[in-house]
Structure formats: structure tokens, C-alpha cells
């Protein structure tokens, strides 16, 4: 169907592809690809930011995996954080999206309400939640007190600190995921449901046999984005607990940051960054294989 024009260059796809893609590609190379590759190189050296660079080969990685107990702790924390945050967030946001998908009065209000945590800066979120979790004056302990549950020092307790951060992370991400689910839901054609109703399907059957399967690509995307985000989480930890208490909330991104900008260990930090990268990569690939729903 494509008409062949005389001026092949002017109308050639390749020409314009080159031109249109160039700015994007340049930025991509300079600020994404090259740094990625440099970072990789840096993971094989030891450098304290000011002095000379020293080649250590696999030394950083060996230290990470065999000698560094903080790394192990932090690695586990990251997995823990991700494994709890992501499923809960997805389930909750799906439920919310289902609820929102009906004709609701005041839907605009609800949308704004759910989106406010998403658009807030992490600093604002951290400050507010530090107050909520405050053992003496915080809202949470107050409410718990009203129903007779003893208040805890949420952010100071070695066992409760991570769940506390997880709650904040879920709180902040719900609106976003909900919106994406909504979009996915509204893309499912009415026809399927009508057909099912004709066959006498109840709401649960409709949900299970139509909604869930047709929502799969959306779910997959949300899952992947959520996992990637959770594995890299940094701001919440840094701002709310500084990795404490006793490293209970320190995650990979946080340990990376400390090594790079507090401990004078840039090379080591790069190694951690690459471990993080491969973690993200493997999760994504696993998801890809399992879903076999390639979103191209």
C-alpha cells in the first residue's frame, strides 16, 4: 500500500527513523548505556573517590557474597520487602479498581484521594508517617489504643520496623496500580460479560473466568513494574529509618548508597549495584517466561 515516491530519501523510513530517533538515542547512550557499562567496569575496582583506582578483579563480588554479612542481611531484607509489598499492593489495588469501575458518585474525589499519596514527595510521606508511627503521640497508637491494642514503637522495633515501612510503601503505590488496573478493566469488552450472563454465570464466575484472564497482560505489567520498583526502593528507608534499627530496614539500594557516599567505597558500591541489576533482570525474565505474555 505504500506508494513509492521519487524522492526516496525524503520519504524513506530509514532517514526519518534516524533523525527522529537521534536525540533520544544520544541521550540514551550517554546517560544510560555508557554509565551502565562504566558501572560494570567500576565493580571490578576499589576506589575511594579521591585517591587512585585499584584493580581488584572479582574481589568485590567475592567479598560481597562470602564475607559481607551486612550484604546478606540487606539482600534478604530486599527480598522480604518485595515479597510482601508487591502481592499485597496488587491484590488491594485490583479490588479497589473493581470497586471503582462501577458508576460511583464522586468518582473524581476518589481518584484524587487515591492519587494523592502517589504524587507526594517521599520527604512529605516520610515526615507524616514518622508522626503516625510515633510511639507517644502518633495516630496509629492512638487508634490502636481506642480498640484496646497496645501501641508499639513501630520504627524502633527490630521486628516491626520493616512491616511499618512496607505499609508506607503500599500506601504510596496503591493509587498508581489501581489506575492501571482500571485502565485494563475498561479495556475488556462488554461483550464477554454479556455472553456470560446469557449463559447464566454469576458474578464470581464472571470475575474468575473473564476478568482475571483478560486482565492478565495488565497484571503482568503492573507486577513487573512493582517488583522493579520494590527491589530498588531507597527513599522510604533512607528518610524514615536510615536503615535501622540494627539494619532491620536496610535494603540493597540503601547499602549501596552508604558504600558509595559514606564509606568511601565506590567500587564496592558498583558491585552492589550490579547485583541489584541482575536481581531485577532475573525476576523480570522469570516473569516473562511464566507469563509468556510478551507485551509487544
Amino acid at each position, binding site marked *: 500500500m505504500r506508494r513509492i515516491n521519487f524522492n526516496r530519501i*525524503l520519504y524513506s*523510513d530509514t532517514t*526519518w*527513523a534516524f533523525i*527522529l*530517533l537521534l*536525540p*533520544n538515542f*544520544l*541521550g*540514551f547512550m550517554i*546517560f*544510560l548505556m*555508557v*554509565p*551502565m557499562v562504566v558501572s560494570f567496569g*567500576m565493580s571490578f575496582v576499589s576506589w575511594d573517590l579521591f585517591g587512585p583506582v585499584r584493580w581488584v578483579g572479582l574481589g568485590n563480588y567475592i567479598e560481597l557474597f562470602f564475607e559481607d554479612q551486612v550484604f546478606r542481611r540487606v539482600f534478604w531484607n530486599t527480598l522480604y520487602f518485595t515479597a510482601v509489598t508487591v502481592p499485597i499492593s496488587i491484590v488491594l489495588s485490583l*479490588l479497589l479498581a473493581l*470497586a*471503582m469501575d*462501577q458508576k*460511583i458518585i464522586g468518582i473524581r474525589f476518589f*481518584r*484524587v*484521594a*487515591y492519587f*494523592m499519596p502517589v*504524587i*507526594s*514527595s*517521599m*520527604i*512529605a510521606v516520610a*515526615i*507524616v508517617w514518622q*508522626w503516625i508511627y510515633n510511639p507517644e*503521640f502518633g495516630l496509629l497508637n492512638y487508634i490502636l489504643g481506642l480498640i484496646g491494642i497496645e501501641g508499639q514503637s513501630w520504627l524502633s522495633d527490630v521486628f516491626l520496623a520493616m512491616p511499618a515501612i512496607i505499609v508506607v510503601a503500599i*500506601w504510596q503505590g*496503591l493509587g498508581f496500580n489501581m*489506575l492501571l488496573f482500571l485502565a*485494563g*478493566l*475498561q*479495556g475488556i469488552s462488554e461483550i464477554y*460479560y454479556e455472553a456470560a450472563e446469557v449463559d447464566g454465570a454469576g*458474578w464470581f464466575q464472571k470475575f474468575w473466568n473473564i476478568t482475571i484472564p483478560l486482565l492478565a497482560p495488565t497484571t503482568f505489567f503492573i507486577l513487573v513494574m512493582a517488583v*522493579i520498583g520494590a*527491589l530498588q526502593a*531507597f*527513599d522510604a528507608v533512607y*528518610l524514615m529509618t536510615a536503615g535501622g534499627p540494627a539494619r532491620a530496614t536496610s535494603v540493597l*539500594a540503601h547499602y*549501596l*548508597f552508604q558504600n558509595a557516599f559514606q564509606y568511601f567505597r565506590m567500587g564496592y*558500591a*558498583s558491585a552492589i549495584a*550490579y547485583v*541489584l541489576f541482575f536481581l531485577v533482570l532475573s525476576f*523480570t525474565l522469570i516473569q516473562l517466561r511464566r507469563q509468556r505474555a510478551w*507485551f509487544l
Partner: protein
Amino acid sequence: MSNKEAALDIKYRANGFISKLYALRKIIKKKKYIPKTLAYLFLGAGALVMITPFLWMVGTSLKSLHEVFVFPPTLFGEELRWENYLRISDRFPFFQFFLNSLRITVIVVISQVLTSSMAGFTFARLRFKFRDHLFALYLATMMVPVHVTLIPNFILMRHLGLMNTHAALILPALVTAFGTFLMRQFFLTIPAALEDAAKIDGCTPFGVYWRIFLPLSKPAIATLSVFVFMGMWNQFLQPLIFLNTKENMTLPLGLAFTQGFFSTDWPVLMAGTVLSLLPVIVAFLLAQDFFIRGVTLSGLKGE
């Protein structure tokens, strides 16, 4: 109407999820997943949980310091101290930081929208060698954690002499793989019929992009803009690392700076926080309709 048929055709053929996001027909549903009252309850409870922290924020911003930590917690103090909002400037040059944030964010949004739409169009509609490999590479980089590129970017900025400048924040953010991906998926849903019609009328590929695809993509652009705006406005780590002097700093840093080591002026801090949230909320409210549309559908007729 051949356009409508084409639209329906696309819809049922589309197999990717994002194409569902931009499904061509708006469908109002009464899906009855759960009884309506339950839905209201659920939504209402959730909304309460979402909003309460913000209510407290506003309330505290109007209190005086000793009223902040009282038990049981109160929403408002004895009187509304609006002067707290004026006192923000004692802590840090609010206006300056605001302008800095705005400048950086707007530049980045414009740049990302432009480059992403151009690249998205290229990947969606133009054919050239290695196109799919390149796109796969782009996708892969979406998985790269920000920290992997942070340190080399830091070194790069230093060598370029761009430390403590806005350029250090803007340059790495001019381009985005995510935005490219988003635009591409959107462009995929625009029917080939339109493009062919344009070509028959003698359009270069650029013309197709500029005259047809771009105008049609308002919802997607709105979506991307809001996401990018949000991200850049609230960015904390990069400004912390790259900016050194008051003239250059951004709003998130300003908020962080209001916290003292031993004591913090909480009401003023909250006032600053409220003010810093306003632009993003406004942006969201304004773009809300476009934004929602952009995420869920696209009208064939653009406008």
C-alpha cells in the same frame, strides 16, 4: 464508517495490554463485580486511609509548636496560625527552590515528551534495520536500577564541570526508556488507515508524525507528562548528590533542610510540605481528565 470499523478491528486484534489501555471505545460498565454498597464502603475506607495523613499535615501546619505533640492527637490547634506559611522563608528560600524545581521539571517534561514521542513513533511505525533489537535494548534498560547509573553520572558531571548545576539533573533525564515505550504502545493502536491516507496525500514520515500522530496523542502525552512531572518534582536523591548551594536547590531538599538535628519546627515544616504538594495536585487535577482518558482510551478524533 470505515474508521469505526477499523477501530473495532484494532480493538479485537490487539493483544498487548497497553493497547487495551488505549482501547478505542469508551465503555461505561455496570459490571457488578461486587455489590455497590460494599464497593462504596471499601472505597470510602480506603480513601480515608489515603487522606488522613494529609489532613493531619494541613492541620499541623496551622498549629504552634507545642500543640503538635499532644496526646490524644488533635487535628487543629487552638487558633489557625497562617503565619507559619510565611515563616517558611525563614528556613529556606521557598520561592527560589520552587522556581528551581519548576524550571527543571518543565524542561525535563517537554524534552521527554518530544523525544519519547519521536522515538515512539519511530519504533511503532517506521521500518528499519535492527529496529526490534534496539527496542528490546530500550526495554531492558527500564529494568536498570537508578543507582547503577547514578555513580557514573556523578563522575561524568564532575568531568564536565557541571557539579552544582541544574544541567546535572536535567541532562540524564532528557530521555526516558519508559516514555518511549509508552508512546510506542500508544502509537501502535492508531490504525494504519490514517497513516496510509496521509501518505497518499504526499506526507513524509515526519509529516505523518507531526500532523497526524502527535495531535492524536494528547491523552498519552498528558499521561506521560503527569508521570514525568511527578517524578522530577519529587526527586530527592539526585538533587541531594548534585546540588550544593542554595541558589540551585530544589523543593524536596528545602523540605529536608527544615529538619534540625535536635529540634524541628514541625508546623513550618508541614506548611512547606503542603505548599510543595500543591503544584503536583494542581497538575494532576488539570490533567485528570486527559490523564484518565490517556490511560484508558483514546478518541479517534483527537480533541
